[in-house]
């Protein structure tokens, strides 16, 4: 990993000729009845063996990224009501995998920003620089009641998300890369001049810093957010490195992608797609009907139902305009097998997929340079602005120690 300083102005992004594929690994799949078709008993879902098996299957299939959903689950329905903490699932997967980027969903509304920052930095260490953060802003009353806080809604959600991202970004920079000096001559383990108070002061809380862990391996852990979440807040367009774009049908997706690209030219665009494939001698529509007979699958995302060849075409088209596509498999065990056997090899043959290389960082996959800490003195002759203040509060406490 290089330590070249960040470009002063984020350039408008040009979609790479080759894209990446992400797979959501939560539960037994995205369909609420997926557990009935999984290749294990219901009691075999919530353990390390299951995490190990799924991340290894995703990695060997050639996926670049795995995501891990989090948060409260609907109680009392027919779906799965148990879920392991997403960030810890990703951490467990770190030493098991070598190229798969690990992106847990982490809420920003009912969590402690300081813990979130430390946990994500730690995930970056245990994965060798393969961590990302899928930012969520829970609007679920159950999450509020669990921590005894008032329900946050409307514009408050964006505010919480933007604040939490800003806190993490400052804390990740609060140790400059060379803060640990181990200077035997002067007896100093740390160079205190390279540690910085974050001094974040938002509307609802303030955070002092510095971080309790050195700077993440990637410098800044890439931040993914649903399109619209962070940009709902003025001046925050720069907070996300990648946007997840969703639309009700594949046709509408391209319009949404174009809108997101125009609104946030510096961010990578990741399209969201539900997937049901022909499998086990059964066509996709019949499989879906069988699953839906147990409980209907409601989803805000575009859905592909059909053959592996059809999905390959759709993905090849999508990857012309987006940087990546995240797939939500109806039944993880079943769809992943077909994706691994037919879809990813075909896309790779057609040259549509970025190479999968061990020890590639998430930033490298996204084409992002490793940024200098915002608190570091610029190298002689370099432009002075390292990170434009993305948030009004950011101007209050820059380098305030």
């Amino acid at each position, binding site marked *: 990993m290089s330590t070249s300083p960040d470009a002063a102005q984020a350039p408008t992004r040009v979609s790479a000729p080759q894209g990446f594929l992400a797979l959501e690994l939560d539960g037994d799949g995205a369909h609420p009845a997926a557990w009935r078709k999984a290749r294990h008993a219901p009691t075999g879902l*919530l353990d390390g063996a299951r995490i190990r098996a799924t991340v290894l299957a995703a990695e060997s299939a050639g996926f670049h990224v795995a995501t891990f959903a989090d948060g409260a689950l609907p109680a009392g329905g027919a779906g799965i009501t148990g879920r392991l903490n997403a960030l810890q699932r990703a*951490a467990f997967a770190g030493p098991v995998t070598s190229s798969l980027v690990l992106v847990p969903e982490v809420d920003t509304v009912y969590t402690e920003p300081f813990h979130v920052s430390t946990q994500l930095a730690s995930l970056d260490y245990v994965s060798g620089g393969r961590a990302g953060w899928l930012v969520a802003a829970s609007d679920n009353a159950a999450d509020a009641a*669990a921590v*005894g806080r008032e329900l946050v809604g409307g514009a408050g959600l964006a505010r919480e998300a933007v604040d939490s991202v800003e806190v993490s970004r400052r804390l990740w920079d609060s140790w400059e890369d060379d803060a640990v000096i181990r200077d035997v001559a002067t007896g100093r383990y740390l160079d*205190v001049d390279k540690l910085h108070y974050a001094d974040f002061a938002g509307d609802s809380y303030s955070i002092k810093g510095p971080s309790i*862990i050195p700077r993440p391996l990637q410098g800044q852990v890439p931040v993914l957010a649903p399109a619209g979440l962070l940009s709902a807040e003025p001046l925050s367009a720069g907070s996300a490195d990648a946007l997840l774009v969703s639309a009700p049908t594949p046709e509408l997706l391209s319009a949404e992608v174009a809108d997101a690209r125009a609104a946030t030219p510096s961010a990578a665009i990741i399209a969201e797609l539900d997937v049901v494939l022909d499998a086990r001698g059964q066509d996709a529509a019949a499989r879906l009907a069988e699953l839906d007979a147990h409980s209907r699958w409601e989803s805000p995302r575009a859905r592909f139902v059909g053959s592996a060849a059809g999905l390959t075409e759709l993905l090849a088209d999508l990857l012309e305009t987006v940087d990546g596509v995240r797939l939500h498999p109806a039944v993880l065990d079943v769809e992943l097998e077909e994706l691994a056997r037919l879809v990813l090899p075909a896309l790779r043959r057609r040259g549509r997929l970025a190479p999968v290389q061990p020890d590639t960082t998430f930033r490298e996959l996204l084409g992002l340079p490793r940024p200098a800490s915002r608190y570091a003195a610029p190298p002689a002759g370099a432009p002075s602005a390292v990170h434009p203040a993305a948030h009004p509060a950011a101007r209050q406490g820059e380098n305030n120690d």
Partner: protein
Amino acid sequence: MTESSTGRSIGGGFVPSGQLQLGVFFQGVNSGTIWKSPDSGSQTDFESFRRIAQTAERGLFAAFFLGEGLRLREHLGRPHALDVAGRPDAQTMLAALASVTSHIGLVATQNTTYNDPADLAHRLSTLDLLSGGRAAWNVVTTDNAWTGANFRRGGYLDHADRYVHAEAFVETAKQTWDSWEDGAVAGSQAAGAWAAPGSARRVRHEGRHYSVDYLPRLPRSAQYRPVLFQAGDSPDGRDFAARQADVIFSAHPKLDDALDFRRDIVRRTLQAGRGANDVKIMPASEFILAATPQDAWDKKEWVRSLQIGPEQALAYLEQFWGRELQDFDPDGPLPDIDPVVEETSETRGSGFHGAKAKQLADQWRAEAKEKGLSIRQFVSARTSRGDSTFTGSYTEVADRLVDYARTGAVDGFNISPWLVPTGLDDIVNHLVPELQERGIYPTEYAGRTLRENLGLETPVRRGAAVVLKG
């Protein structure tokens, strides 16, 4: 029993197991870990943690322990520069280690003051399930607003309330782990629902410091619930442990003190309505070993010189004097100038504070003068954890440990290695076989869960929720 004739009987129906367990405490922040040696590795790279955890597991250690401090330590108003600092989040690191270990317990130090009970209980459940029943929580409390500056709530808890709050928090966590019925998850994919309706209880707590109302998302683990460690040494802390903890991470390693501490804990445990053997005791310790006694003592001198260098010695006094003392000779007498503060404040974030500074300075100057100690020698003696260090040849130290096992003074030791990541190598390669030869150390893991390996009873699921104030 013959011990009673030597004054070593515990009483109260306590039965010594005759065995010792070992744990390893990867400290990450302190002066005890040497960073000046060329053998000193990274404090953050995963490989350091993997190496120590796997070495410990090779030595059949019961537990791998991580500490936590939620604010970077400071010295005279700036981050403290001289010691090892900066460590990964305990539970994130332990979740990663769960995938590369199979038997060792994974103990996370986690603070009750700056966590939410529902979130922390859920994350501990996650670690417990990911590791197949090897998770533990070392329960700690903080009350200072200085740490609170990193959190939404800021400083909100009075010192006197910290155990009241902690106990309500732990009860809420235990209710979380009691929530799901056994067999709640469907046995077959043809079942009516993934989990039977009503098979999990809501957890509710309405208190002065926090409110909780939620439906836990996880079933119990192979060891029922995470094992609870506790380290508080005050009377309140000891009673808290006697009521709630499975293991005490104690500060009493010297044999006589350990016996007294055991008696005290047995008494408090019985008072709390639990069995005399229900709470295990593992003191913090440090081992400096070699093939011969002389080599071990030489090594100790070298270790100490690297732990407390001239800069650390002066900085240690500066915490109590409240002013810079860089002009004083570390190899000379204690400073003859007086402290500029009324009350002392040891490096922010650790437990010692509040003594009268002038009085303490006078006392220390007198003591150093009487013993003829320089600043370095004085500080080294004060910080050397004298009683908790076992120095000697492998056979010598193993012989000493036999008394601890036979009397039941402790159930084992929680070892802080002074070198990362190779600091356990000679313990595992040389001391463990000596202990095994003496019949006081396991020759294989008793089971796959931490509870099994520590010889702890499986909890019984409780009925209605217990409501505690706090």
